[in-house]
């Protein structure tokens, strides 16, 4: 998905560069008698209307795909509790006691079943980002002290998934990670 986004951006950026270059060159070639753009107010109106319609379509297509609505009507097959802390993730099938946080290692999650991650933090803000075997970011939420963010996801490919922290949390932020297996 990210590479499609990059291509979309590059195409739009390229089109913008072409427009600005064309307009600049038209000025360089212009004579004193040239009158500039004909009916600019009308063109401005159409430009705005088209932009408004495009953005409206984009909003109506993308908002329903927001993570808050993902699998909202389904019941999770598994709940995984996540407590983030400087500089580790604690993952557990049971609720985590903040006084003596303990987790499980070598977690295995089921394929094609709905998992709900209940993510919180025991100290500062962290990120909880799931990367697939190709190191592509597939889902994320924030880990915020005092709150539990619920992230729902279905893994459709087996393999090892890494968890990285994506909110700057201190000097070992870059080393804060965990993993689980899906099969």
């Amino acid at each position, binding site marked *: 998905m*990210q*590479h499609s*986004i*990059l291509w*979309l*951006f*590059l195409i739009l*950026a390229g089109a*913008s*560069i072409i*427009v*600005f270059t064309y*307009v*600049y060159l*038209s*000025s360089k*070639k*212009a*004579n004193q008698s*040239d009158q*500039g*753009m004909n009916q*600019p107010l009308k063109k*401005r109106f159409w*430009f705005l209307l088209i*932009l408004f319609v495009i*953005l409206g379509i*984009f909003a109506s297509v*993308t*908002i329903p795909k*927001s*993570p*808050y609505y993902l699998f909202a009507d389904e019941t999770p097959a598994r709940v995984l509790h996540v407590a983030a802390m400087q500089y580790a993730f604690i993952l557990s099938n049971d609720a985590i006691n903040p006084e003596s946080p303990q987790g499980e290692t070598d977690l295995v999650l089921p394929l094609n079943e709905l998992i709900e991650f209940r993510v919180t933090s025991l*100290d*500062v*803000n962290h*990120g909880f*980002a799931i*990367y697939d075997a190709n*190191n*592509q*970011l597939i*889902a*994320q939420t*924030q880990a*915020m*002290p005092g*709150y539990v*963010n*619920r*992230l729902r996801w279905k893994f459709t490919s087996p393999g090892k998934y890494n968890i*990285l922290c*994506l909110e*700057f*949390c*201190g*000097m070992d*932020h*870059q080393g804060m*990670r965990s993993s689980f297996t899906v099969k």
Partner: protein
Amino acid sequence: MESLKTRKITSVWIVIVLALFIVAIILGILMRLNQGTIIQQSPVTFYGNMTTHGLTMIGIWFVAGMAAVNYLMERYVKTSYGVNLFALICTIIGVLMLWSSTFIGHFHAGWTFLYPLPFKVAWAQWATPVFLSSLVVLGVGWLVWSVSLMSQILKKYTLSQAFAWQHFKKNPAVETPPFILITMVTLVGVIACLLAAVLLLVLLFAEYFSNGSFVNDAAAKNLTYFFGHTIANEMLYLGLAVIYELFAEVSGRPKWKTTWYVAVAWNLSLAFILTAFFHHLYMDFVQPEGLQIVGQLASYLASLPAAGVTVFSILVAVYRTKINWSLTNLLFFIGVAGWVIGGLGAVIDATISNNFVLHNTLWVPAHFHTYNAMGNVLFSLGFFHWFAHKFDVGFYIDKNAMLKLTLILFGGIGFLLAFYIGGADSIPRRYSNYPPEFTMAAPLATVAAVFATFYLLAILLFFLNITKNV
């Protein structure tokens, strides 16, 4: 017209901004070299530099916009030299305090100092209060400056005139210059976000000195991003005010006037810009969903007046029109293009379903570096160049103009592409060193550092040329 004192203090602002910009760019290049494993910094040094780099950049381009607006404001209303000087002194003291907290005290909680990280002390004990105090000093100086500028505007124009509401009807009795309208709209946003920062800092100080733990994390996060997002955007608007004032003038064209659609657009911009900050909290699923949707819609809607009025107006002003092109209006024109392209990256990221896989990857620095390094910076450089040469006797030709532009474009585009490609590859932002599985991360960082060096060369040339003339 402006006094000699205003001219001199504007020169001082320009020299300080350019000098600090060079330092901040060097810190950025060192960060990318470290990520590229070309040099080795400890994570503490890296994150300290990251904190310094971010806050210095935000600070200097905000004051650059303010100094330019203050200077040009003298065409319409008298401004307070004393307040301008006060803001300058506060900025110098604030930057020195900030740098001592990061360079000497090794404070490294990032320029967004997201609560409660500043209190999880992994640096000298004194560095946290000094860092927070540096923000107070900067904030007080800028708040007083903003309020003073606004009060001077309101001495000449009524509130409704300052917002150009009379232009909603045909043939208004009083004309509000676009420069006044944009400055007014911007100052409202600036004052609002600085007040949010004051509230946040009061809460943080109260907690620090009482040794308590009563600040709500979600409230602190909302306040932080309301402040950070708004100030980063308003400094761009200060640059746009300068363009509205100077583009036609330096191009040898009739001065731009406020029309009904310019008045409507800028009034709407204020509403959108103050509510778009929610897009920074998309990944906090406990935020009310309504606010998340407001974040996406406001971010989308903010692009309409920007594209439909400001960008379109620049294109109309140039298209098939004989213009006296100079480095100043070229920088303005290219800067608007950079602003548009950065805006495209921003709108893509402000789409919640995209943000789900882009948030806090390199896509984020990619888009904000685009509209800053290739947008806002060029707006201010355009003003600096115009200011430095407006008192020249005779016709002035900048022999290095094409070289500077080429270096900026070549260095800037290469440097930014490395960020965008890294974002599409899901490479995290704000990592001092990359995990080995991100095989492209280090090479991209190295390439970015090389391109950024070309950009730095252009800024050094600007520094030499401009400081010689101011």
